[in-house]
């Protein structure tokens, strides 16, 4: 039979060039052009995440209501327009940033860009549309709330950040009845019409597209914020085991968490490598042991989430109620082992190669590259980050990983959350 072919040397990332400029009204414009595409994307980024909202749901309502009515067009007219041109608009509301996205064929750029600009600057927040939006979100919330994994995430965030911090999910059912058109309009004026705004154009960007974007977004006045940026203090809970009983659960969701590492920190490369070995890919120690050896679960992962001013790390899995304690014990054994013995050369080399490919895939193609760039800009970096990161990974030693594991992964400092049926 045939033996394994030789492997080629890992290639280095090739980045499309990007340009940055400041428009007359202070809006930033980033362009990543790939003339080989027939489509383009426009991302509009506002500093209007949940961190800045006066009460739950207002930030996400404000960004979502942009599609629901302007001074010139109704929600149905706006939707029909984009559907007719085969274009998509989308909305995202994060902790800090919120985004309005347009994805469109380049040949329909004029029609779609103008209408998106109208949504961004002439939103009226019609009360009837807001009501429909809240009703549907409430329903989704009630479904999510039944899921053990959702409950475990909510509990973990409460423990990590404190009950009243915006990073903890504070939404309760009654909040859906408390959002008014006035609150949403006020937030829209304060955080979407005012202050910082960044535009990212990617894909096939002709000079007409760029000029149109500059004209439609660059000249309207953007006054500064009128209110002070709120300061929310963290109030983490004491580490330990936290169990939530859900008597009708078939499986238990396990979520073990603690503070993690931010992207710009110097340990980031090593920590990424360490986490990948431990629970960050299909062949990780957690997967090999708990799925492939024991068959306790369909999947188990660990990952790190970096935020502008914080970071957390967690292990997540769903297991049959009967396997909960055995799984916790195996996780504990894996933690002890990675904190006691240096990672073997062979395993280290394997994961380095895997991670190299994984990071290249993160910036494969113009749209992936733009998404990656968007993330890096939060920290004042760009995609040159990848070359530095790859170099950092390459020189990381087993001793450094051992030290990181000892410093970051003390089981006594972790929150162990279980949601499911533990009592007979």
């Amino acid at each position, binding site marked *: *039979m*045939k*033996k*394994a*072919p030789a*492997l*080629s*040397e*890992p*290639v280095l990332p090739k980045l499309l060039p990007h340009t940055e400029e400041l428009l007359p009204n202070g809006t930033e414009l980033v362009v990543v052009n790939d003339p080989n595409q*027939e*489509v383009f994307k426009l991302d509009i980024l506002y500093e209007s995440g949940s961190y800045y909202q006066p009460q739950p749901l207002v930030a996400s309502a404000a960004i979502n209501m942009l*599609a629901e009515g302007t001074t010139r067009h109704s*929600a149905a007219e706006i*939707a*029909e327009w*984009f*559907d*007719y041109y*085969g*274009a998509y608009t989308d909305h995202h509301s994060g902790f800090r940033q919120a985004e309005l996205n347009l*994805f469109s*064929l380049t040949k329909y750029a004029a029609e779609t860009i103008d209408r998106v600009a109208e949504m961004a600057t002439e939103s009226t927040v019609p009360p009837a549309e807001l009501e*429909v939006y809240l*009703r*549907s979100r*409430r*329903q*989704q919330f*009630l*479904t999510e709330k*039944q*899921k*053990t994994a959702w409950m475990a995430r909510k509990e973990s965030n409460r423990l990590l950040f404190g009950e009243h911090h915006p990073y903890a999910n504070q939404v309760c059912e009654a909040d859906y009845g408390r959002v008014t058109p006035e609150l949403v309009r006020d937030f829209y004026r304060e955080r979407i019409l005012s202050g910082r705004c960044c535009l990212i154009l990617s894909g096939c960007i002709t000079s007409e597209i760029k000029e149109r974007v500059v004209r439609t977004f660059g000249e309207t006045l953007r006054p500064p914020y009128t209110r002070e940026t709120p300061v929310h203090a963290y109030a983490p809970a004491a580490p330990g085991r936290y169990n939530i009983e859900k008597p*009708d*659960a*078939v*499986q238990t969701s396990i979520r073990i968490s603690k503070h993690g590492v931010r992207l710009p920190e110097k340990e980031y490369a090593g920590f990424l490598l360490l986490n990948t070995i431990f629970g960050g*890919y*299909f*062949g990780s120690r957690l997967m090999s042991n708990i799925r492939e050896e*024991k*068959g*306790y*679960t*369909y999947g188990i992962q660990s990952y790190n989430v970096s935020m502008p001013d914080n970071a957390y790390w967690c292990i997540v899995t*769903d297991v*049959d109620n009967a396997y909960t304690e055995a799984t916790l014990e195996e996780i504990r054994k894996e933690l002890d082992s990675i904190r006691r013995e240096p990672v073997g050369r062979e395993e280290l080399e*394997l*994961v380095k*190669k*895997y991670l*190299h*490919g*994984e990071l*290249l*895939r993160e910036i*494969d*193609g113009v*749209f992936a590259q733009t998404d990656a760039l968007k993330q890096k800009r939060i920290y004042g970096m760009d995609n040159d980050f990848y070359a530095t990161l790859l170099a950092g990974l390459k020189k990381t030693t087993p001793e450094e990983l051992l030290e990181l594991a000892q410093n970051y992964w003390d089981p006594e400092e972790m929150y162990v959350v279980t949601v499911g049926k533990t009592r007979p």
Partner: protein
Amino acid sequence: MIVFSKHTLDNGLTLLCNTDTGTPFVTVNTLYKVGSRDEDPEKTGFAHLFEHLMFGGSENAPDFDREVQAAGGENNAYTTNDYTNYYITVPAGNIETALWLEADRMAALTLSRKSLDIQKNVVMEEYKQRYLNAPYGDVWLALRPLAYRVHPYRWPTIGISLEHIEKATPEDVRSFFHRFYRPDNAVISISGNIGEKEALEKVKKWFGEIPPGGYRKAPLPVEPEQRDPRRLVLEEKPVPADMLFKTYHMGSRLSDRFYCCDVISDLLSNGQSSRLYLRLVKEKGIFSELNAYVTGDSDPGLFVCSGALSEGVGMETAEKALLEELDRFASEPVGERELRKVVNKINARLKYSEINYQNKANTMALFEFLGASELINGEGEKYGEITAGQLQTAARELFRPENSSTLLYLKK
């Protein structure tokens, strides 16, 4: 447009290749023409369980995933009612590693008792996670046997029950492998940074000597025409809202009717200007969510409507409102701009799907599986030719009460 070449090796293996120099990667997609419809009715869920076993190692590559990872690649697989699909994406310079791995497991998969026992357990946990522990997770376990009485689409890919998965034996595994996992029952599609000629040579090198199986599948039982409306009520479910499901039998993936039904489903629920969303979710507020879609199966499939009722709305009101919208197709022809809109949207979707080489590899394999590689670039035209009159005829035939199965999923 996906520019591709197609070749069939002497052992029956079909290869489709598309060159995409916009990426440093390449995707090798391997589709086996076997899905849950080919299972023994007493041992359902087997095709999917077998998909798990395909990662258990082969003669020269005892640890499949490790080899992919060392090549800087990623891989995964999925099973449908019709076929099982595997893909590996690697830096283009390592394409031979991907081909070697696929060839080695096609030629000499290791079928160990231990691997079977572990994967049975993993699949049972998957069953619980997706179908039992998730709200509404068991809908299709009930809906399939309601809509299909005879055809094997009556069971889901995960299987009828946990017991069926538990029953699988090493003998089942071996005979399934020798029957279905042969080159003449497989399609390889490649998209990425590689020339078509080079790809063909390499595929010949790694797969050329694997003998064909020559297995002839017995024809599957044909679902008889449904003559009476069917109805099932599930009560006391631990969910926040009542849901209504309606299915209608429709044509197979390659029938002309498929395209009409797909357009009807888009008119009803694709996008925020679609009929069901505008009228029943937004204007009347009867549903908080409402979707219509087609299953797109190789054998005659289903047209599906599924909706979550808004709080305080009765099932009778909801069902009546949905049926009124479906009946409108029979009475009023679709307007010109509305039809244009849906066709534009479909054409844009086809364009968007060509951005990514993994998608392209998947599309090529799927159409070759259906025996219609000419449709890889031919679907836009099919949609463009549809007329309002054809839609009306299709809708009249589709939305007949005696062609429907209704499931009411009621909360506690």
